[in-house]
């Protein structure tokens, strides 16, 4: 069992948890993820590592409830436990494993969309600890979806906030900010790291391709085991089939077939929708249209 030391509601629909997992905390690096399973009957859910404390032996995760399992996670409190919590999975960000002197020469822009701020944060923090100040764009549909602003400001160079509806920071989607920074505000970047919903990563890549900025994205396909034994998370990268859980999750964004990846993400949409309704409606749930026997 993996004890939850802290469970906190963030702004918007998001939650933060600090979980006791000493082996993971000792070995993880930014860019990696964990798989959590709440109880015996639960499914295995991949979540990125937002922060870690090697001394305390803890991992911080940030998540947005979007389905039955993550909805159930929100009901867990400090003192409760995950039955299973495994990792660190995937390859660390190359920024943390490449030659540091080479990384130092680069001007890096991070683009965090929504809950994507969670996996961006440890990378920016790691760079900061190694004397590199990267710029960060944090974007969200509206003000309450902007995450980790203060934390990011403490470790980044410039932080640019943008909301689609203009309720906070700049107005517009992240790609607009990228274009403004590069085309109108005299900034230049050697590398962009974009993490967020697939659609946001897709459009970011289209923009950075135009601007000629190499771009790394962190893919979030469906996973089961997360150790390379099933291929549920496979993606087409360039001409090759890759397993995101072991070959990634970070890839060259300009080589990803996003349209195919997004279609694969939708595979269980019907089942997921039903499962979420069941959790939300609890005892009042009757199985949805077609299954409902009426008020018999």
């Amino acid at each position, binding site marked *: 069992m993996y004890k939850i030391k802290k469970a906190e509601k963030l702004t918007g629909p998001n939650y933060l948890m600090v979980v006791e997992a000493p*082996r*993971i905390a*000792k*070995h993880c690096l930014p860019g990696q993820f964990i798989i959590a*399973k709440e109880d015996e*009957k*639960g*499914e*295995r859910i991949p979540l990125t590592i937002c922060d870690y404390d090697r001394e305390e032996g803890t991992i911080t995760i940030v998540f947005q409830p979007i389905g*039955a*399992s993550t909805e159930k996670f929100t009901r867990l409190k400090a003192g409760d436990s995950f*039955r*299973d*919590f*495994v*990792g*660190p*999975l995937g390859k660390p960000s190359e920024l943390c494993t490449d030659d540091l002197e080479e990384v130092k020469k680069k001007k890096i822009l991070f683009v965090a969309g929504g809950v994507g701020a969670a996996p961006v944060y440890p990378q920016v923090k790691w760079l900061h600890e190694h004397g590199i100040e990267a710029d960060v764009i944090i974007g969200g549909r509206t003000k309450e979806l902007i995450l980790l602003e203060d934390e990011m400001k403490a470790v980044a160079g410039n932080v640019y906030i943008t909301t689609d509806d203009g309720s906070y920071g700049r107005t517009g989607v992240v790609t607009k900010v990228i274009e403004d920074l590069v085309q109108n505000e005299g900034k230049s970047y050697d590398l962009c790291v974009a993490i967020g919903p697939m659609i946001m990563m897709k459009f970011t890549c289209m923009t950075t391709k135009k601007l000629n900025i190499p771009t790394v994205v962190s893919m979030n396909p469906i996973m*089961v*085991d997360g*150790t*390379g*034994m*099933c*291929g*549920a998370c*496979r*993606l*087409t990268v360039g001409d090759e*089939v890759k397993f995101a859980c*072991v070959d990634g999750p970070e890839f060259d964004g300009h080589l990803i077939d996003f349209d*195919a990846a997004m*279609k*694969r993400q*939708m*595979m*269980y949409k019907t*089942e*997921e929708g039903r*499962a979420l309704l069941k959790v939300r409606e609890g005892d009042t749930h009757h199985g949805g249209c077609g299954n409902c026997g009426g008020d018999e």
Partner: protein
Amino acid sequence: MADVLKKVPVREQAPKVRAANFEEVCLGYNKEEAMEEAARCINCKNAKCVGGCPVSINIPAFIHEVKEGNIEEAYKIISESSALPAICGRVCPQESQCEGKCIRGIKGEPVSIGKLERFVADWARENGIKPPAPAAANGRKVAVIGSGPAGLTCAGDLAKLGYDVTIFEALHEPGGVLVYGIPEFRLPKNKVVAAEVENVKSLGVKIETNVIIGKSTTIDELLNDEGFEAVFIGSGAGLPMFMGIPGENANGVFSANEYLTRNNLMKAFLDDYDTPIARGKKVAVVGGGNVAMDAARTALRLGAEVHIVYRRSEAELPARVEEVHHAKEEGVIMDLLTNPVEILVDENDAVKGMKCVRMELGEPDASGRRRPVEIPGSEFEMELDTVIMSLGTSPNPLISSTTIGLDINKRKCIIADEETGKTSKEGVYAGGDAVTGAATVILAMGAGKAAAKGIHEFLSDKK
């Protein structure tokens, strides 16, 4: 009077009934049937069957006890050699091992050794009989990587010798292929696998789940920082292969590993478990091994019309004859001498069919099997919504790539001595599919057993 040339028949669920449930197909012998079958054994002096068993169970001796009705005594004899008899009795390919060597098999059917072993192990479990207690603890720590058949056997044998053994398992349940691969209807998980794992734990073996060696920690750390004096790698061959044909990433194409893991480990077939599975209506399973049969029979039970698509003929099917027979009885359709060339998809990238080509058999290849050759112009399309690729697996390179000084061959298999399990790295032993590539449960157990002996000799010499 029963025909002494024939096995006492074993009771099974009727094909139509079992094709709609996940209950065990084979119901096993009762005590009377077991004693009657045991009486067919002629108790050879130089018993060939023992040589056919990779863990050398004293078969005539345990069968003699069954014949006399001393089932507990029979269990003790099996336990000297095997830690997982309820599993082996069910999943070993006995026809090519113990039963293949049985003298009775020359003129008639061999003694049903597997079913007798199964009966003894099931009886022991139902009557609360535990394996004999281990030797006094010697305080020396050994780590075992992987809790599949190789790891469980190696750990059990080392514990019996007094070692302090910890198994590290990447998944959330121990058992390896016994829990994620082999379906419930061949090998019940709670009743049989969990109980045999408990028996290994009752010998003092500790199991730490959710630890991925190479990620959560490394073999070098286990040896240098955590006080382990030797390591056994039994991490299997779990990396699925795909064909590389167009459309293979479409929605509705699964590796057999994914399909079986969702169903067996995550229990997707039960409503109160959260993991979903695509319940196809028309399913093709590509491949002809035991895993293909397991995937096909699983899809059938989830309500689909199921086709096995295999490029050679029935005679070359690598699956056990019994499995093929069961699959056909249940209604799996065999499309033999057929090879997929493309997965056809609709506008949402979901599978709508598969383009295949008919094959004929040419000259024997390096493996001795006749090589399938395409018949020009024989392309045709199958209408499908699900395709399961069951083309075999290879070892995951994670452990070898994170362990300094551990040599692998060009198939990514760890190089280890067959007799002792010794690898290129001192104190590190390996066995099972991690060394041989995908093989059988009992061969993995045999390798685990050999490595336990190898580790014991190494540690005895060391101090």
